[in-house]
């Protein structure tokens, strides 16, 4: 077996051991009543609760509502941030105009603006989607700008001497060269969007995973609160994994064969 196999085996085993220990701890606790078992459900209790929610039909609705918000917000944020970031990284004058404004807004935690967004846009989807768009904008914009700014001038000279015009240089050199940085921005933006999504749903929503946690609290359904958190974790992990695979695929030129085997 190769070393890669053993690494994966160990990582998987680590998760399984954690779940088993949790399950065992819950079973022992249920017998000896050391802590109130209602407050500390076991992994199997969570599976049962998730199954009930799925049968009731609320689980898929929650996941769908949450993902719709995060993807719409993330999409809007990326569509605004990437072109603006490219232009800002490329034109120094524009950078001097845009940069101070971005730096003024960036330190504000997006959640501080949530009440404002609700007053402006109501309690519906728009306030949450735009808040997610707002928060994803910054990491994507900043990483895109940085990626464009750090282009090696020798690549621009090479492209010029080979007869490329401005738009050809943009598509063949600038975007390509900045892509690793842009993808990092997308990953950070997505993680932040998820964070803001759940917080917004806890405060102001009538569907979604964050809303379900809040609602379960009201009915003292602790196992369902755990289910909500666990599903958010799994979704976040899955999308981060998918973005990393996409990164590997798009950026094969960055790793050498030797590194890829290591």
């Amino acid at each position, binding site marked *: 077996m190769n070393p890669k196999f053993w690494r994966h085996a160990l990582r998987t085993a680590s998760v399984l051991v954690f779940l088993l220990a949790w399950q065992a701890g819950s079973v022992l606790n249920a017998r000896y009543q050391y802590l109130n078992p209602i407050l500390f459900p076991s992994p199997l209790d969570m599976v049962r609760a998730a199954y009930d929610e799925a049968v009731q039909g609320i689980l898929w609705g929650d996941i769908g509502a949450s993902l719709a918000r995060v993807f719409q917000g993330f999409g809007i944020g990326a569509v605004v941030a990437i072109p603006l970031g490219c232009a800002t990284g490329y034109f120094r004058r524009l950078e001097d105009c845009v940069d101070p404004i971005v730096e003024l807004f960036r330190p504000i935690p997006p959640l501080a603006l949530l009440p404002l967004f609700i007053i402006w846009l109501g309690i519906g989807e728009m306030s949450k989607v735009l808040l997610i768009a707002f928060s994803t904008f910054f990491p994507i914009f900043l990483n895109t700008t940085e990626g464009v700014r750090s282009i090696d001038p020798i690549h*621009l000279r090479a492209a010029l001497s080979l*007869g490329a015009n401005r738009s050809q240089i943009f598509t063949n050199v600038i975007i390509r060269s900045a892509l690793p940085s842009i993808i990092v921005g997308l990953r950070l933006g997505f993680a932040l969007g998820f964070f803001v999504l759940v917080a917004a749903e806890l405060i102001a929503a009538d569907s979604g995973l964050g809303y379900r946690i809040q609602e379960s609290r009201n009915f003292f359904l602790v196992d369902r609160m755990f289910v909500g958190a666990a599903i958010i974790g799994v979704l976040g992990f899955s999308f981060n994994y998918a973005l990393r695979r996409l990164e590997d695929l798009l950026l094969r030129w960055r790793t050498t064969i030797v590194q890829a085997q290591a």
Partner: protein
Amino acid sequence: MGYELQVIGVRKVFRPEDGRAPLVALERFDLAIEKGEFVCILGPSGCGKSTLLNIVAGFLVPTEGQVILDGVEVTGSGRDRGVVFQEHALFPWFRVWQNVEFGPKMAGVNPAERARIADRYLDLVGLGAFRAAFPKELSGGMKQRVAIARALANDPKILLMDEPFGSLDAQTRRLMQDELTKIWTATGKTILFVTHSIEESLLLADRVVVMTARPGRIKTVLPAPLTRPRSDVAPDFVALKAELQGLLKDEIEAGGEARPTTGNNPGRQTL
């Protein structure tokens, strides 16, 4: 006039933005190169030889004077001048064949024809087997060969080479010099080659242009009528080398306080 390239009275002054004294990099530089000729520019570090190459390439505008390529004045960079840089400058996100076909692709040549051109020049530099590799997977010498193929794929009138083998180890460098001589013989291209190595200039050039320390002027132009393939132990080679060493020694002493050249590092580039 049978000249492929004429550099007429070129002068270049850099005026630093931070208020330091202006820097005269080149002073009254005149040079004419015939079609198919291989000319080396030899000079100490910081003498302005890279600046001259960047002016001919169109990356820098001369303060005075003009550059005429095949009867037409140079006003910017263009596909009629192929440039090979000191660092390979390949596009790392493109595979080897995509790098080589870059010029024809920008000119709108169709994909089949582009692939044919890329294959032809990759075969010329002996890297046909590596067409699908990424630049990262190649050694330094191989990268420079791809860079030469990429410059040639546009069928330029002149090849401008800025110390292209400077970062290679001695043995690879020697191989590349032989390789370049073969490529030059096979294609008949006019080549302007910048170097600070006396041996390199004598192994390659028909004529060696010796520059003074800053501000860079032509000190002397030395024909190198040696038979090819050249040997660095042949008596006539050794004699010319001694002559060049004598010429350069004064300049290196004179240029001891020279600041690093600004010719290679333009910082943020405006297009």
